[in-house]
């Protein structure tokens, strides 16, 4: 079953996978293909290569999807019947926008945005991307402006942490811990017992009073956003559980990406999330039939011996790689229980323009 068939009726497609496997280009090519078929599609990319971003007209500024002009596809074999919109996620800005939306008043909003703990948390390269990617997805879904949303995810093992983030976040916001932070010497702290006050005095001694003060101010300000967070958390859970949401796992046939793909598959299973399919990039296919030396021998008489031997050597190497990739594919198919992966062969260069996307697109939609 081709990918377009698998994605029929899906409104949200989330592409998970480790770094360096071509996830961003897969997401973009997929979105382009669905748009070509007539849908209004938005792709949220995380960190696209500069040249690719330029070729799609993506700008650094602006945290909203922009229409990719249909003229960009002309001459590359892509007939754009629908619309492709694209954006690069700005994690910090997404977080700030969220606070702005949730803050009950300007004073609270300003307090949170100016707080240095907040700045650290929201600016941290690690943490926010996973959370803000899903926050952005949620906003775009709510806007009801698009037929399909394709989400590229951050290249980390934590990329699927957002699956349980809503629960954990509300758990924290509703839990006793927050109440204690809001009033470290208040009733809640006394109720929690001696341990709590000891913790705070040690924190004060080991790290310095200022920090604790900052944290209290931060959590106090954050407390005002609890209701909004809770509502959002519920909304995100609903979105992820929606039958029109699906997850694609993108990988390559190398050992570590394979392990990551298996890991992601496990996470999806744990969270009860739908696995929509497997895309395997950079696959070395067997390009000639039979023995490498025999294939090279076909050039006997056309080429000097030395050159023919170089060709034979190249073929032999590639056959070893094809053999390895075949084994990797088998392992993936077995471990992920996926008998019909979408295979994209190793391309000649980096995908850095519409032409490259068109090549990927050709392989992604080959069975359709």
């Amino acid at each position: 079953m081709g990918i377009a068939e698998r994605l029929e009726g899906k409104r949200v497609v989330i592409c998970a996978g480790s770094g360096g496997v071509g996830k961003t280009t897969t997401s973009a090519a997929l979105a382009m293909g669905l748009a070509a078929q007539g849908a209004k599609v938005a792709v949220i990319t995380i960190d696209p290569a500069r040249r690719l971003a330029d070729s799609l007209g993506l700008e650094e500024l602006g945290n909203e999807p922009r229409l990719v002009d249909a003229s960009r596809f002309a001459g590359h074999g892509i007939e754009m019947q629908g619309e492709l919109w694209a954006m690069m996620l700005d994690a910090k800005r997404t977080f700030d926008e969220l606070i702005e939306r949730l803050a009950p008043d300007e004073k609270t909003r300003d307090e949170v945005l100016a707080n240095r703990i907040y700045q650290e948390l929201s600016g941290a390269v690690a943490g926010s991307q996973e959370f803000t990617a899903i926050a952005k997805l949620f906003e775009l879904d709510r806007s009801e402006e698009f037929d399909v949303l394709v989400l590229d995810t951050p290249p980390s093992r934590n990329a699927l942490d957002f699956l349980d983030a809503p629960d954990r976040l509300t758990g924290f916001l509703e839990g006793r811990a927050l109440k204690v932070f809001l009033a470290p010497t208040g009733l809640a702290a006394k109720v929690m017992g001696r341990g709590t006050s000891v913790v705070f005095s040690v924190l004060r001694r080991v790290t310095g009073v200022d920090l604790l003060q900052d944290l209290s101010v931060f959590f106090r300000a954050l407390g005002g956003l609890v209701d909004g967070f809770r509502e959002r958390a519920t909304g995100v859970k609903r979105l992820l559980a929606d039958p029109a949401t699906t997850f694609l796992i993108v990988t390559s046939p190398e050992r570590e990406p394979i392990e990551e793909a298996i890991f992601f598959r496990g996470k999806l299973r744990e969270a009860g999330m739908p696995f929509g399919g497997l895309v395997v990039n950079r696959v070395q296919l067997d390009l000639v039939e039979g023995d490498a030396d025999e294939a090279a021998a076909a050039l006997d008489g056309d080429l000097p011996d030395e050159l023919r031997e170089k060709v034979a050597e190249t073929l032999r190497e590639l056959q070893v790689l094809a053999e390895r990739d075949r084994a990797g594919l088998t392992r993936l198919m077995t471990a992920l229980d996926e008998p019909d992966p979408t295979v994209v062969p190793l391309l000649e260069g980096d995908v850095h323009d519409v032409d490259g996307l068109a090549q990927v697109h050709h392989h992604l939609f080959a069975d359709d």
Partner: protein
Amino acid sequence: MSVLDKRLVFVTGKGGVGKTAVAAALGMVAARRGKRTIVAEVALRDDVHRALAGSEGGWTESAVGDDLYALSVDPQRAMEEYLGDQLSRPLAELLAGSRLFAYFAAATPGMRELLTVGKLWELAQDRRRTPGAQPYDLVVVDAPATGHGLALLDAPRTFAQVAAAGPVARQARAIEATLGDPQVTGVVAVATPEEMPVNEAEHLRRELGGRLDLVVANAVRPDRFTDEEAALLAPLAERAGAARVAVAAHHRARSQREQLERLGADVELPFAAEPSGGADLEELADVLDATV
């Protein structure tokens, strides 16, 4: 001075370029040279979610060869170890079990990274803090990808901005002194000959300047045809599969060459694949041994 003559070496680069393989291979080379070496992988998780979810395992200095050890550093365990060192046992246990403290640690700017780099620093000390532990001649860090990797190196300074007093801050200053000493700390950037990884290596060069000791190009495919030879092969491509494959390989090699020129690596590691799909570490170690 070879980067392997330093005490603490960070290996970083874009995700997927083979940092782990290069770090492991560097460790093997050092061990071959008689240095008691440990390769430490950093299992950095993201902040808020980590605090809310609790920690996950991975924490044993285990022997993997002659003079060669491996370890996975987890920030949560690093914190527990640090607490155990600074406080009485009951107090340390109280704090380690306290979710408040976990949230606090996650929310404090630079705290997680500081605890992680603190553990790596401890591995590289003559006098180990961990009871019964032996010192190492070399600690090779399989660091997180570029941005996070740099955050590790900057951790002491980041933390110092937030907490000027207290034992944690004092230790941060000691760690910063070590990280800032080019005789002691080294950095290796790894990139595959592709656009994005090379971009990140360039970024590392800009950020680190002289602190970057070595740039390694990994997974370099053979580049065996000259342009003239490719021209001879091209007309044969239509009827002979072998020629077609060779021409495609040549195009890929040319693309790769462009990236290698941008990268300007000190050493090129061949695309060395084992049947299992992992890197052939012995082969990589051989090449590194000859250059580094």
